């Protein structure tokens, strides 16, 4: 086993914990910039309309109004709001302000004024004449012949088939799936569907745009992708990127909704137009309607298995609703297949195909799980059905089919980030152990054998498995700069973006472990495009693995430099020296130097130099974390109410650098998934207006709604990960939809394939069965 560790694997105090707990002004809008204007956005009242004219005359007369932007006075540069690496694999189908609006809430104009009241008055006085167009509110209508074309603008780029409202499409066959399905002894097919889900991050999207002493534009923003923000804002506003600095302070949650460049270019444009600082923040209602959502999707899975239950053929089709714009449309679609199909790699005949379709509804984008969540819902319900057909325990069926360490899947190579992927062998996988431990914890076999029934309350247990990735192969790159100070402590500069996940702390732990110092000897400064090296950002479960590896490399280089300085000072060869407990000690002579002495000597005394290193890491492969989920439900057959009794998540995320934070990631993801399964859904009027854009009407789970989430971290060692670590941020959200659906099936015999599984839907299904 590994040597005694001092930082990795310990649940050390989160670096920002004290400041956050005591309410220090660390968040974006906590900064009070003198003379700051307030920005507001005029939303479209129509789902689909052309703007015939805009008259801002009256609005400009409102005292305190400083600028009004709209299509008539801004440049038209198509781009994507997707905060992805260059070149973004998302269509360029968005402009700052368009002549056409494509959903209720689409931006028509933006105002900057001295006060919020003045800005609101001005919005009310902007006169817009619309020519209302027929709206497309479902995938079926969007694909129907003669459907209104949502993106008929001539200058959009990278749209798969704009004339037919198809933003993206994929069709990836491996072998001959139709033939293999026809030959299979056992076949099942199921379609599972999810509606519009909201991320519900506590902090709404917000940004302050201001100018520094040298007139450079600073964007202090709630983002997951500061470096992409800088690149995209500079391009859309035709700025010299050198003149743009993006700072990410503390963030109140992102979950993918802040992997989008939505408000930053507007705030920047208003600031440039007025020469004044501008603060722009979404209200909760705007977050619901005009930020991003999960892609509503219908996924159909066909499985064919032999008599032993080994899956021979697997066909998965996804129909994705990307809403009015195609941000992340291709990559989320691709991930539905690429993050799910390798799990059952015995199948030699596979096909993944699907479309992402435009509608005149809110814009879907990145959301924790990123397509895998939708894919696993259908796949794991299908596996449950297959188990039933075979008369086999669903757990046993998983054991017969799931991928093991040392194995691969053709899917890794076939499906990548909007293009071909890269072949990959799974090097670490403890899914078998996850299944064993999870089953033991929830009492799987007893509860499957004799399900409880108490009056109208029917009990059931269900399970699901899932994997994800760790970063995007060949694309995600992170860099870290580590500098030793004259007092023997360290500065760690990382582009990595801590959005509440605790990544600053985890990266400090990795550096501390290599340097053999306590974590509090590392000062972390992150996510500032002026002062930290590049990082793609907080998405795709990448930070611990990709950024962590960059920190690991930088720390190893710094460690070598420390030993070199010590070797000179002690006049001993480097290979006699050891760095441990904040000192370099000679194994030969026993002579020692503290890190403070080494730092001081290097800076001030002889052979002066800065001990420092910058290292970068490009994701060479994307090791999947694995998880097994077990849900126990009680269903009231008289009201359709589902009470979640227990939820167990057994997760292999490699070595957990910070076990408590890893558990927190699992718990948070599982609770969001429970929301998907039982409570959440955005509703729309016949005109496409969201009718529940607030937490009063859109129900997320509260503390009373979830049992304690029982997380079991099942250790494995990922050889390519920093200290054996893999990702853990997303995998947990893939479990609840199928595990709860499968548990409800065991309890009631009703197979729910449309989320959420609310009382009315369930009672209706129960009635249908009787």
């Amino acid at each position: 086993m590994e040597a005694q560790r001092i930082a990795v694997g310990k649940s050390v105090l989160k670096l920002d914990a004290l400041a956050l707990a005591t309410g220090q002004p660390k968040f974006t809008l906590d900064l009070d910039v003198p003379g700051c204007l307030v920005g507001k956005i005029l939303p479209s009242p129509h789902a689909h309309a052309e703007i015939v004219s805009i008259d801002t005359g009256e609005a400009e007369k409102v005292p305190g109004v400083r600028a009004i932007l709209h299509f008539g006075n801004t440049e038209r540069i198509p781009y994507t709001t997707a905060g992805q690496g260059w070149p973004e694999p998302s269509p360029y189908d968005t402009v700052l302000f368009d002549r056409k609006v494509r959903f209720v809430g689409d931006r028509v104009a933006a105002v900057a004024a001295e006060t919020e009241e003045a800005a609101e008055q001005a919005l009310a006085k902007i006169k817009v004449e619309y020519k209302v167009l027929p709206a497309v509110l479902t995938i079926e209508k969007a694909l129907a012949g003669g459907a209104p074309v949502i993106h008929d603008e001539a200058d959009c780029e990278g749209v798969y088939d704009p004339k037919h409202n198809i933003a993206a499409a994929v069709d990836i066959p491996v072998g001959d799936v139709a033939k293999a399905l026809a030959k299979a002894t056992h076949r099942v097919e199921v379609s599972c569907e999810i509606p519009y889900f909201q991320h519900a991050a506590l902090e709404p999207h917000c940004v302050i745009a201001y100018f520094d002493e040298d007139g450079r534009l600073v964007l202090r923003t709630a983002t997951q992708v500061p470096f992409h923000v800088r690149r995209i804002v500079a391009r859309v506003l035709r700025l010299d990127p050198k003149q743009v600095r993006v700072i990410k302070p503390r963030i109140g949650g992102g979950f993918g909704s802040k992997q989008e460049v939505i408000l930053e270019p507007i705030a920047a444009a208003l600031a440039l137009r007025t020469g004044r600082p501008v603060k722009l923040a979404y209200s909760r209602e705007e977050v619901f309607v005009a930020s991003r959502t999960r892609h509503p999707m219908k996924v159909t899975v066909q499985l064919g298995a032999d008599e032993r239950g080994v899956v021979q053929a697997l066909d998965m089709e996804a129909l994705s609703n990307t809403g009015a714009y195609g941000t992340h449309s291709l990559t989320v679609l691709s991930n539905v297949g690429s993050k799910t199909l390798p799990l059952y790699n015995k199948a030699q005949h596979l096909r993944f195909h699907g479309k992402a379709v435009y509608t005149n509804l809110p814009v879907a984008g990145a959301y924790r799980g990123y397509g895998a969540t939708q894919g696993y819902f259908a796949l794991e319900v299908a596996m449950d059905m297959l188990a039933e057909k075979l008369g086999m325990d669903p757990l046993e069926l998983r054991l017969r089919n799931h991928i093991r360490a040392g194995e691969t899947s053709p899917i890794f190579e076939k499906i990548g980030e909007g293009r071909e992927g890269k072949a990959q062998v799974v090097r670490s996988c403890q899914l078998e152990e996850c299944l064993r431990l999870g089953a033991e914890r929830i009492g799987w076999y007893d509860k499957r054998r004799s399900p409880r029934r108490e009056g109208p309350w029917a009990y059931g247990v269900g399970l699901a498995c899932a994997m994800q990735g760790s970063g995007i192969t060949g694309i995600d790159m992170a860099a870290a700069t580590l500098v030793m100070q004259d007092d023997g402590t360290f500065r760690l500069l990382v582009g990595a973006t801590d959005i509440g996940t605790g990544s600053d702390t985890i990266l400090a732990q990795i550096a501390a472990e290599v340097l053999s110092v306590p974590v509090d000897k590392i000062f972390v400064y992150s996510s500032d495009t002026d002062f930290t090296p590049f990082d793609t950002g907080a998405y795709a479960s990448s930070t611990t693995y990709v950024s962590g590896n960059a920190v690991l490399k930088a720390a190893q280089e710094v460690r070598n430099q420390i030993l070199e300085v010590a070797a000179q000072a002690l006049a001993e060869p480097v290979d006699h020296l050891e760095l441990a407990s904040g000192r370099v000690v000679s194994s030969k002579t026993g002579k020692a130097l503290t890190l403070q002495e080494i730092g001081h000597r290097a800076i001030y005394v002889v052979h002066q130099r800065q001990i420092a290193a910058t290292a970068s890491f490009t994701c060479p492969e994307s090791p999947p974390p694995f998880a097994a989920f077990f849900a126990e439900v009680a269903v009231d057959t008289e009201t359709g109410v589902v009470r979640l009794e227990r939820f167990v998540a057994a997760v292999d995320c490699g070595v957990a650098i910070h076990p408590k934070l890893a558990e927190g990631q699992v718990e948070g993801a599982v609770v969001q998934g429970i929301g998907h399964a039982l409570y959440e859904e955005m509703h729309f009027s016949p005109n496409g207006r969201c009718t529940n854009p607030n937490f009063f009407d859109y129900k997320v789970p509260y503390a009373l709604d979830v049992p304690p989430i029982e997380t079991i971290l099942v250790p494995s060692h990922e050889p390519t990960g920093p200290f054996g670590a893999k990702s853990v941020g997303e995998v947990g959200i893939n479990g609840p939809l199928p595990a709860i659906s499968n548990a409800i099936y065991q309890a009631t015999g009703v197979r729910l394939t449309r989320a959420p599984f609310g009382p009315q839907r369930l009672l209706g299904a129960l009635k249908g069965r009787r």
Partner: protein
Amino acid sequence: MFGPIVKPKDLREAVQRVAEGGRPLAGGTDLFVRIRKGLEKPGMLVYVGELPELGVLRATREGLEIGAARTHSELLESPLTEPFPILRKTLGTIASPALRAMGTLGGNLVNASPAGDSLVALYLLEAQVRIVGPQGERELFVQEFIQGPGKTGLRPGELVVSVFLPYVEGEPVSYFRKVGRRQALYISVVSLGALVWLDGEKITKARLALGSVAPTVVRPRAVEEALVGRLAHVEAVQDLVSLLSSLVQPISDLRASADYRRKVSGNLLLDLALFLQNRK
């Protein structure tokens, strides 16, 4: 968003201010939400939360008088409400601890929401509402007071001073079940409350009240009467399920369909019977 907030020195002045068109304000847990949503734009708010008459909590030989401005948490904690377990059961499900600490019984009453949880208890207990206005004082039974969603028997210038709960005879079993889309902080989609008097396993008397299934809380008298003489068993009440469903007039809204509400209303009778059956 709204006019001035005045704090009258006594009940007389409060009545005067309300007669001038002021809107009584106590906990504000509903009123401020409505103002913020733009549903109401009161010219003047009359803060009645600290008037002594609205703060009474007095047990008499006949029952308990509860000042309209008493908060849900005060009532949950007071030993004086112990003889009314049904009141505690319903109050305990209202919103969240923070809202229960601010919201008042009088507020829940004058809101006259068909989903008002405390109303179910007040209907079961046959509460009387004490009103004061320019023409003096008067009393209405709760079912006379509530006239429809948001509609009460208050005349212009009147305000609710207190609610009187008469003691019930004997020791009925109290039952309350609220069905909604979530456990925490939710508005009921259907609720059923009951007081059931038993002689052994036999029902000797029953009062039932349903929330969220009609313009007001519903007392299904036909079911109450039909229950008398039956055993408190699921099988013994099975035939009343459809009767109960037929006595409600629910609507469809964002939270649930009318069909669902009707069906669950009836099914909750089975849940009540099971509760009585399992009670030890």
